[in-house]
């Protein structure tokens, strides 16, 4: 087996400068969880099919399991842990709670990050636009109804 290289990576995560040592084989998801201790992003499939590991990378949502850790040098990363302002939850986080939009909660971090990116880009999406945008995030518990209603509520509150 070839010796594993380690790489120093500097980036901004949830508004804070971070320097960490990544195994060259680490995905961004592995680095977030195992090197930095941010376990909010979840591994559901490790091949980009479920969206549980969604993070915002320089303004774009990505499946962090498909990004190498070394690639985020100099980037800005926002995870679910960065959505609230201290103990003030975001409108979207509150809407998920009020609409009972989570059951087991494992997909919730990915849905929140993806939905926030949608609302940042399109503050008043239609139901179809929401369903299309969120089709890369799998939820097995809710049937999506209450998630869509939560995004609708957050959109209405944000626009109002």
């Amino acid at each position, binding site marked *: *087996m070839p010796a*594993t290289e380690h790489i120093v990576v500097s980036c901004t995560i949830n508004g804070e400068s971070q320097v960490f040592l990544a*195994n060259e*084989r680490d995905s961004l998801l592995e680095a977030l*969880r*195992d090197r930095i*201790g*941010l*376990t*909010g*992003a*979840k*591994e*559901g*499939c*490790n*091949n980009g*099919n*479920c969206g*549980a590991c969604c993070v915002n990378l320089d303004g774009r949502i990505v499946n962090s399991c498909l990004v190498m850790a070394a690639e985020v040098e100099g980037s800005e990363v926002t*995870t*679910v*842990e960065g*959505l*609230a302002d201290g103990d003030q*939850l975001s409108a979207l*986080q509150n809407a*998920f*709670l*009020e*609409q*009972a939009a*989570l*059951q*087991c*909660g*494992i*997909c*919730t*971090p990915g849905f*929140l990050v993806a939905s926030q990116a949608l609302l940042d880009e399109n503050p008043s999406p239609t*139901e179809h636009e*929401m*369903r*299309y945008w*969120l*089709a*890369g*995030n*799998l*939820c*097995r*518990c*809710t*049937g*999506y*109804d*209450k*998630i*869509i209603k939560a995004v609708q509520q957050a959109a209405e509150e944000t626009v109002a």
Partner: protein
Amino acid sequence: MVTAQQAPQSSETEQYNVIGTRPIRPDGVDKVTGAAQYGADITLPGLLAGRVLRSPHAHARIVSIDTSKAEALEGVHAVITNADFPRASDEVIDTGEGSARLNWVLDNVIASDKALYKGHAVAAVAASDHHIAEDALELIEVEYELLTPVLNVRDAMVDGSPLLHGSLHTRSMDGSSSDNASNTASHLQFAKGDLDSGFADADVVIEREFETSMAHQGYIEPHNGTAYWRADGTLDVWTSTQGAFVVRDSVAPLLQLSPSQVKVTPMEIGGGFGGKIPVYLEPLAALLSQKTGRPVKLTMNREEVLLATGPTSGTYMRVRMGAKRDGTIIAADVHLAFEAGAYPGSPVGAGAMCALAPYDIPNQRIDGYDVVVNKPKTAAYRAPGAPQSEFATESVLNELAEELGLDPLEMRLQNACTEGDQRADGFTYGVIGNVECMQAAQDSPHWQSELEGPNRGRGVAQGFWFNIGFESSAYAQVNADGTVPLVLGSTDIGGTRASIAMQLAETLGISGDDVRPHVVDTNSVGYTQVTGGSRTTFAGGWAAYECAMDIRRQMESRAAQIWECDASDVSYGNDAIVRGPADDDGNERQFSFKELAGQLPATGGHIVGRADVNKTSSGPAFATHIVDVEVDPDTGKVDVLRYTAIQDAGTAIHPAYVEGQMQGGVSQGVGMALNEEYYYDESGDLKNASLLDYRMPTALDLPMIEPIIVEVPNPGHPYGVRGVGEVPIIPPAPAMRAAIANAIGVHMSELPMSPRAILNATVLSED
């Protein structure tokens, strides 16, 4: 009968203060901020990472395993195989929603002499990180002798079929066993009336065959298990499980430990649906920890989840049903053959009991066969066995209605079971909401609407699930400020901290916000069975009720002590006011809950309420679903246009989470109906072991799912609870089959009714 559709509080539950409201769940904030700790999120000092080597073959004898090269790799701390475990006996242990021989439990965790399905664990490695552990797997050398795989029930049941287990004989209900070894593990039969005379009296008889594919629970969180075997011989396990006590009581005998030596901490769980009841990784992590002296965490990737953890059974089913011209069903003959996977224990028994459960049919016989095949050992999956068996029976019932020119809901009402009716398995119904669901469906805006357009159709189906009770535990302290921490043993998958705490608050007459529920480890609460079977809000709520009644009694005696009167003269009211006899001056004496709580420390100390219940009763639940679909005749793709799910919840404790269970069950049922299948090639290689190719519904595949909650309170529960999780997965497939038939005139005979299957049944069959 009252329905509570999207209402903040149903009129049926207006007698309650807390029950029927929609508070924010106690664990909610942690789950929207990323703070909640799921099984894979745990870290411990010195933690090692483990990986599992799995068989590439569906059926093979393991000739030899050489782990020496893997052990020599730098960073590898231990490698184990089945041979490293203590020899397991064939004693039968409780496995949560069933039971199994201990040696089969071990052999499924890690193969002994044979690999029985592709993905069967063969060896496990602990290393300093998971990259090294993965490298080490490639260095383990396994010599296999390939055997012919057996891949479906009909092949497996043929005389002369290759056998998975030389020691397996067919067991019958009378306890006898077949002389010859067989892949058929058991045969059961439920019957009543006279089948031949029933069919002789029928004006119309329809017989159909069905095949359904294995389908996976599809929880988004893969399995995980972390263990630390301490130098004093005690073992700590942290895992995502539906039943911490099942994990304890499986791991302990596998490692020849006393249950007292094993503490299992249930982490937050990312979905289960029955599939997170069996142990897979926990025993491996434990043994690796013993070998290394360090904590070890094992996690599965998605391919491993699909290859090696509990799908529900694929089946072959045959149903013959006869009716009078007026729609009375007078005879039904049901044959169910269920794949158990590699070891016995399919849900065919429950499937058989559910098959005709909504209907009072005088002459019926249901035969069930539990059959081993070279596929993963099946695990419970939401209403285990019922989505298959009721797909078959509901489908034939719909065809009978069509043949007789009857409204399918009217025909169901005409034959519906009501209080006092007895199933073929002997169970007699108490108060049930079967008819009420059908009537609510008839009254629904969906059923009352017209469906127009080409290639569109509407279907309806009924569903039944038992729900169960059994053991649950609840302990609650009363703090001096009047708040009540509540400890529970039930894993919270979908909001049961809330639904159980609400029943405690209701009983104490206090605010729901004052009850703080916590799910704790197996040393910190009484024995609690799995979160499954729709038992948690039912039995957990009952424990909470009795725990609160225990607190009420203790509060009454404390007040009596303070007032120096007889406890029998003190009463705790439902308004949480403790009232005693007037004092010598004739003044009323009373304490609010908070006032008395504040007095506790100085008047004898704090109090703890406690209840450990074991309820053998249940709350049978019924559902009626209506679906509109559009079929693309060129591609065979089916779009769901509109969906309404009606269900009797007994009492909806937290209506938003009742709706959530209904909507989630529909989503899984739609997946099972349209797309989800285990696609094996002839060698037993699963060709679609990813979430791209094992196609579960996305947000774009579904419309809004309209829930209509019917409340026919269960007289066998303090608050009328029935349990809600299981039944909504049952009606979608038969309702969609009827809708497809209504749209394009083709009655499908398989699940899933995928584009491929529909084209096979339409375009290709015309050539």
